[in-house]
């Protein structure tokens, strides 16, 4: 058991014993190897919790399940949650969007120098990421690692952007064609929490339930646009895609655009995306 794993167990036990939280969301070992999300309700159950390079999942998505009380008339549960720096940015977005209450969550932040599950290359998102410290936490575990700052690298994006429009469209249609419309990208995203997604409405005017190229095309562009200025670049959508669509290219295109126009990077602070709400003296910079 890693030192941080022990500290997570200790903190979780302390929080549950004190009644400070009703549940701690962290990671447990998967019987098949690796790690998976875990929900711990009892102090004696906290020894299930682990920490290692396979803890890739962004657990903030599960806070949406904890917004409602378990029983009518009760208070919503208070939750402890383990977050990496990338995950923590999603907490800021959800706080700004009034989706969660700060006093109901206890954030166990973990300093991070990139995930590595021992099966090969570290995830691309970690290679790109220079954030070592969570942006929001109640307790910080681990020492901020000494790592040289990472240069912003949009080279992969530039390769697609440099294609002539017809080839660029062909590139994306070829990718979208593999999509099976399983919605895993949407379901794993902390920022996708509409009760009924506009792409799944029975009376949707733009897109019907068919699992065909036009619907998939519209869905992916719409999904990316709805996250403009809100995507925290945790890249979970790309990780969970069973067909390996390069969704981070779409997201980061918009990240770069919003940063250039508004100097805003989602989740760094507890602020709303300016894209929909900010009109300057001269109107929107768009």
């Amino acid at each position, binding site marked *: 058991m890693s030192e941080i794993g022990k500290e997570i167990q200790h903190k979780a036990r302390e929080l549950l014993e004190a009644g400070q939280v009703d549940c701690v969301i962290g990671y447990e070992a998967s*019987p*098949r190897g690796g790690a998976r999300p875990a*929900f711990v309700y009892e102090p004696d159950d906290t020894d299930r919790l682990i920490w290692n390079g396979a803890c890739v*999942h962004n657990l903030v998505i599960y806070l949406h*399940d904890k917004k409602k009380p378990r029983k009518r008339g009760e208070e919503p549960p208070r939750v402890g949650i383990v977050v990496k720096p990338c995950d923590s940015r999603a907490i800021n977005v959800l706080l700004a969007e009034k989706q969660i209450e700060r006093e109901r969550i206890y954030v166990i932040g973990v300093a991070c120098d990139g995930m590595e599950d021992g099966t090969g290359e570290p995830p691309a998102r970690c290679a790109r990421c220079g954030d070592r410290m969570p942006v929001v936490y109640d307790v910080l575990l681990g020492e901020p690692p000494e790592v040289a700052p990472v240069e912003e690298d949009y080279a992969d994006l530039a390769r697609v952007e440099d294609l002539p429009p017809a080839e660029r469209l062909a590139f994306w249609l070829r990718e979208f064609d593999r999509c099976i419309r399983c919605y*895993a990208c*949407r379901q794993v995203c902390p920022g996708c929490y509409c009760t009924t997604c506009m792409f*799944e409405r029975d009376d949707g005017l733009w897109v*019907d339930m068919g699992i065909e190229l036009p619907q998939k095309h519209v869905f992916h562009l719409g999904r990316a646009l709805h996250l403009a200025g809100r995507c925290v670049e945790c890249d979970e959508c790309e990780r969970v895609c069973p067909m390996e669509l390069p969704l981070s290219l779409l997201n980061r295109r918009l990240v770069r655009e919003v940063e250039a126009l508004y100097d805003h990077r989602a989740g760094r602070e507890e602020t709303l995306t300016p894209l929909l709400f900010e009109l300057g003296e001269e109107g929107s910079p768009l």
Partner: protein
Amino acid sequence: MKFTTPDDLRAWLDRLAQEMDLVAPRDVDGHVLYRPVTSSDEILFDYERPELSAKDYLLPATEILLRIEKQGHRPIGADAPMGNEVTQEEVLPERKQVIFGLRPCDAHGFAAIDALFLEQDPSDRYYRHHRERTVLVGLACPQMWEGCFCTSVGGAPDDAAHLDVLLRAADEGYAVEAVTEKGTTLLKGLKTEERKGDPPPSAADAELVEMADPARWRQLFEDELWVRHGERCLSCRICTYVCPACRCFDVTDRVVSEQGGVTRIERIRAWDACTSTNYRRAAGGHNSRPTKPGRIRNRFFCKFCYYPEDFGALGCVGCGRCIVSCPVDIDITEVMRDVAAR
């Protein structure tokens, strides 16, 4: 055994591709998928388990059931006779279809769907149509792959049971077995020779997963294990869409065009998934299965309790795809073991 060489097999497949719709395992941008092919050059002969099942070719992810054309327009409340011309047309592909390189578990999946769509009265006319126009040519798995547990649910990596033809790799060629009459007919064009001996059996050495009977499952409906397995579910649709035996669909009418007083409408059906949040949402907004543990419980009960009880077949063929593709490691064999051990 009947034996054919790789060259003769290719020549036969190339002819089939001319005469009918041929579907076979292909490399699609690094993913092994069953896809339409026009030549044997596009086909993979050495592959593991295609990442998606082949059910799309008998129960398409999206299928047009009817093309509807409506002429004229009747104002609401008008007493005048309709004056509307409504025509409906059913368009189903007539060509024969061959699925080549089908893994035995995927054929087993069709047998599971048959139990409801073919063997109940009435049968599903669209599924029946595709089933009748299709010949299943299997290629045995030499071994079991990551997550595979077909031998625990009545299958085997070289099981011929639900195929029309089974091929097995042998002696730098293939042993050919006609399983059904349909298969015998299709094989008439394939050059084969008699050889002594049998093809080597596939390695079926995966640990068996213990199965509980439906009655045992029913006793565990309220068990806490559904929260434990279901709480981390993302409510996506991966497990149901990669599954060879999941068969839920939804139906809708979509307007394709409105021009010159003529409205063209398509009635489609498309795959649906019991794991998704809104699967059970009814008119008025009520959702009778609103939680993740409840939906996960239903998925597994369907496979091991309801479907066997109602239609006499398991809803799982042990292909293991849902296990390897779940982003949060919900493992059907772990659930089966937990139920059996309770």
